[in-house]
């Protein structure tokens, strides 16, 4: 699976991939790839949030979740868990990278850096429910970049961010797009 992906992604740009849609050898497109990755990431984060953090901190009240989980002997926050996953992937492969970003980040490391990230994060705020896809060139290499909205699904999303001293925005509400998951795949 990994090898086929590597070959198709390395050998073709999206244009070629879609043009030869009838060819069984073509494999999956970068967008199918990032959509699938996002589905896994999103589901894992939801499960961690509900079945680990939510259950243990609110229902069973046996442990807290904290940004300083090491010192507080607590659970890492879902957004940190997500970032640690991304950093672990980065240690193992350069075939894709991902991050959770926002135009109003608590952690300034999560602010958009590239022009496409800035454009895409604004796009998903302006067009609720839509994803954003674009190619970009970074350090002389071409990438397919996909950005998926990250929505305040529960009141705590908004309240924790609004109350955090490092948050540049203090009026998030349930339903707001708070940021986005950025997934990037190198092309040919």
């Amino acid at each position, binding site marked *: 699976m990994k090898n086929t992906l590597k070959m198709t992604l390395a050998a073709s740009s999206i244009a070629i991939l879609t043009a030869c849609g009838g060819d069984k050898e073509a494999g999956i497109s970068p967008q199918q790839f990032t959509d699938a990755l996002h589905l896994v990431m999103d589901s894992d984060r939801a499960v961690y949030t509900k079945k680990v953090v939510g259950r243990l901190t609110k229902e069973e009240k046996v442990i807290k979740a904290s*940004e*300083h989980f*090491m*010192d507080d002997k607590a659970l890492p926050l879902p957004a940190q868990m997500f970032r640690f996953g991304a*950093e*672990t992937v*980065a*240690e193992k492969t*350069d075939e894709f*990278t991902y*991050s959770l970003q926002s135009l109003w980040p608590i952690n*300034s*490391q999560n602010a958009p*850096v*590239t022009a496409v*990230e800035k454009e895409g994060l604004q796009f998903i705020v302006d067009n609720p429910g839509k994803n954003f896809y674009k190619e970009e060139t*970074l*350090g002389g*290499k071409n*990438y397919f970049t996909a950005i998926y909205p990250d929505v305040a699904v529960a009141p705590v999303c908004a309240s924790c961010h609004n109350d955090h*001293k490092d948050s540049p925005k203090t009026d998030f509400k349930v339903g707001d797009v708070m940021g986005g998951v*950025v997934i*990037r795949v*190198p092309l040919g």
Partner: protein
Amino acid sequence: MLFELVWSQDKSSFLIGEATHGHHQIELACATCHTSPFGGGEVIQDACVGCHGQELASAEDSHPKAKFTDPRNADRLAVLDATECVTCHLEHQNEQTRAMGVTLADDFCWHCHQDVAAERPSHEGMEFDTCASAGCHNYHDNKALYENFLVKHANEADVFMSAKRPLREAVTQYLANNPNTKALTVADIELVEQAPGEVYQHWQASTHATVGIACNDCHQSADGIWQQQPKIQLCQNCHQQEWENFTQSHHGMRLSDKLTQTLSPMTPAQGRLAFQPSSLAAEMTCSTCHGPHELNVEKAASESCLSCHADEHSLAFEQSPHGQLWQQELAGEINKGEGVSCATCHMPVVEQGKQHQVMHNVNHNLRPNEKMLRTVCMNCHGLAFSIDALADKDLIKNNFLHAPSVHIESIDMALERLK
């Protein structure tokens, strides 16, 4: 072929420049770092991580490679390639090497954080060579310097009423885990001709006798032959953690299993610090500090140190308040744990795995010295007092003879931002 020929011989002529303080002891074990004669930076990188990776992980490194490999950082990396150790730590560049082996100009933070004042007005006008030198930030280890930590420990007393260092507990832990252990006395063992009588007395009073370890456990080879002088490597059979830590330090690095070549133990004669002339030939092994039979760890905690170390800081220790407390503890005038020895700061009892053990790597918390805050200073002193003391160069020279005369404003700034 030609390469093999030259490579296997004396390599001192290949040295292109003196090695740093960190590596000079092993500078002739070239292949440890230069794992392939034709390798580039990535080969060296593996060698760096092989020895320093674990330490970076436990420091919760603020700038790990994994944070920079995302292509979104391509522009930043073009300015400063933060994915490779050698970008900041070049070897064999004596003239431009600064504290901690850094070969970049001290204001390197500027490259990525030039707009910091936009977000933190308090930082307006600060020089970029002060970020990492003023006791405020480190590039790798910020475990005791992050904002919420500063806030949490603001307003602490200079000296706690409860001041006490953590005590050793390896023996009690061992006995708890091995309830069938039987202590031995001289009556239980076969006496050996080669050994003078005092060896038996020392042994009987030692921890080894308490945990049932006798002569043959160390002095007999696998095929039953008496070893008059067991090798130091033998200690690691039982003391794996101590061995690992010791061989990562400037005391034991020449014996590290990670070297591609066997070196002799370190001696003060080979060192770059000031040492007692009488100690120059002393070889650094386990029994240098605590003799194999006596196992006197109190002696090991400062008397041994001072038998070799003779720089200004070390020589000032005995007159310092810490040194006075240590004398009082040895004399039984204060409680155990209330004194401060060399080892209290340089070889503290720390949590390793699930156990509290003596940290045998004297370099683990040495530089940047803010690494001492959590495991050492804050057992007895408040955070603000401790940060100030570690930032006071004179205090380090005179071994903390008086209260700090500098003040670092980091906690004040963290509190200000909460208002």
